[in-house]
């Protein structure tokens, strides 16, 4: 009782103003999400009606049906899962192996190599896109999962990020395993990795989200509509060649964002905290 009264008394006018400001900002920020969800279920007549409204009068599944007939949707979503999931899986394995060596093994050339890896971090992939495309084409990998995934199967940022995390783990944790005669790989796999789950989870989600959402990459490495991702597939619906009704576009967008938004809402607290505290800053 007294605690409640104390809280109420502590709620100063400035706090009330701050909450009002935050409500307004959040509403603006969430408006595009709301428009995607609500328009996806709006009948075509309402979507193009003037004056426009936020909420549908009638709810319909027509847009979702139409967008799945315009594009091979199941295929594109599947491709997105394979591409983003494949990149994430490979990158986590290769990045953590490399990061372990850089953080925990004292070998000749360690510092030079670390600087070299950080230097590649500064190369934007957009700047190497043309020779990268030629290379992938030489391998015969255009329009294949290998072509989409292999060039991203390791990345400098992930290595650097995990190295920082591995450095922060106390060195003593692997002492017992070493006394038992465990190999370097065993120490890595059964001692260091289990302690790095938060960092791996954060990096994994980050990698997955970035690849799922990437547009330029699948646009360049796939020319066959069946090999694109949901993100690149949707852009086929717009532009000069295909003007598709807004309702259908929003239905497609809803499908594209749904897996990520659900995953994010389920683990959001952890995700945000991990980004904030595990060294992404």
């Amino acid at each position, binding site marked *: 009782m007294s605690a409640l009264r104390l809280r109420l008394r502590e709620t100063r006018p400035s706090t009330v103003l701050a909450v009002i400001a*935050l409500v307004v900002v*959040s509403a603006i920020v969430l408006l595009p999400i709301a428009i995607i969800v609500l328009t996806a279920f709006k009948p075509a007549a309402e979507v193009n009606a003037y004056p426009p409204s936020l909420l549908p009068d009638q709810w319909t599944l027509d847009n979702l049906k139409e967008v799945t007939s315009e594009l091979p949707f199941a295929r594109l979503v599947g491709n997105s899962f394979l591409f983003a999931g494949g990149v994430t899986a490979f990158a986590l394995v290769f990045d953590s192996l490399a990061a372990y060596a850089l953080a925990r093994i004292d*070998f000749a050339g360690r510092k030079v190599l670390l600087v070299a890896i950080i230097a590649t971090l*500064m190369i934007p992939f957009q*700047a*190497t896109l043309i*020779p990268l495309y030629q290379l992938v084409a030489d391998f015969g990998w255009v329009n294949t999962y290998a072509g989409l995934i292999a060039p991203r199967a390791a990345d400098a940022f992930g290595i650097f990020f995990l190295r920082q995390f591995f450095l922060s783990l106390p060195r003593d944790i692997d002492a017992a395993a070493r006394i038992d005669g465990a190999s370097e790989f065993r120490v890595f796999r059964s001692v260091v990795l289990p302690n790095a789950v938060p960092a791996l989870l954060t990096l994994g989600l980050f990698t997955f989200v970035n690849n799922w959402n990437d547009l330029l990459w699948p646009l360049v490495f796939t020319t066959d509509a069946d090999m694109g991702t949901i993100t690149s597939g949707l852009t086929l619906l717009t532009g000069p060649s295909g003007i598709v009704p807004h309702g259908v*576009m929003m239905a497609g967008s809803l499908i594209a964002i749904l897996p990520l938004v659900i995953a994010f809402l389920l683990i959001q607290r952890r995700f945000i905290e991990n980004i904030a505290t595990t060294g992404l*800053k």
Partner: protein
Amino acid sequence: MSTENPTARRYRPPAPLGGRRRATGSPLGRNAKAWAFLAPALIILALFVVWPMISALRLSFMDASGFGREEFIGLENYVTVFTDPDVRDAVLNTLLYTVLFTPTAVIAALALALLLNSPRMPFRSFFRTALFVPFVVSFAVAAFAWSYLIDPQVGLLNYWLRGMGIQIGNVLEDPRLAMPAVALVAVWKLFGFYFVIFLAGLQDIPTSLYEAARMDGAGPWNRFRNVTLPLLSNTMAFVLIFAMIAALQAFDQIYVMTGGGPYGHTQTLVMEIYESGFRKLDLGFASALSYVLLIATLLLSLVQFLFFGRKEKDLSS
């Protein structure tokens, strides 16, 4: 990219007797082991990052059409890069985009982080989640949603603004408004990420410093100016450089919303690279252009690296 933390949140064990680092096996054995751990990642990076970078440099001195014909033409592509009015426009557009995007996103993120830093703020975790949601939405989808919202005929935002007496017209066809519009979409998509980084930076500032400042009679502005800002400078520098690099690479939402138009007013550097490389198949010229982007990014990253280099040394010692 700091993991440095002034408060001793991370436990650091005392150095074991007889040497700081535990020696396992002979130095030779350690070297072999280390390279075995590193091999997969290094092969990928060498093949798909370093080699293409060297390749792009070679291509930038060639007249190459992408059908195997390559002819050495010296600096001609670079001469074109530095004289072509289209390139000059693309560079200016990219700079304009950077100037529109970076301060807006960073100030919005900082202001919201300051508001939500107090643990007594009601609905704190709800707001934090709501503000971060756009970060998981792709640029492409963000572009579709915003295009619909500002559609001149049926756009809800357009209609609401008209109700308030603000006529924005056909934004994406308007040479003055198209660039601010695509930059604002990027602000919407990315500010949540910077916001979270700022929040983390704010949490690292010891509250005792604020109490001390308050005892000295410092008001809210003074506390912000003399405590928060100086102690947040590392985070600020990181976010600023991160945001600028993101701005230099702007592509996705522009490709979807305007395709570089109207009349090239949103044609950025990466749009130009994509167009000259993959539409006009002028690979040599596109590669020379890529090097402009590469060098701009390198310069920015170098600033960042020098800034954080000191901390890096602390960590690896």
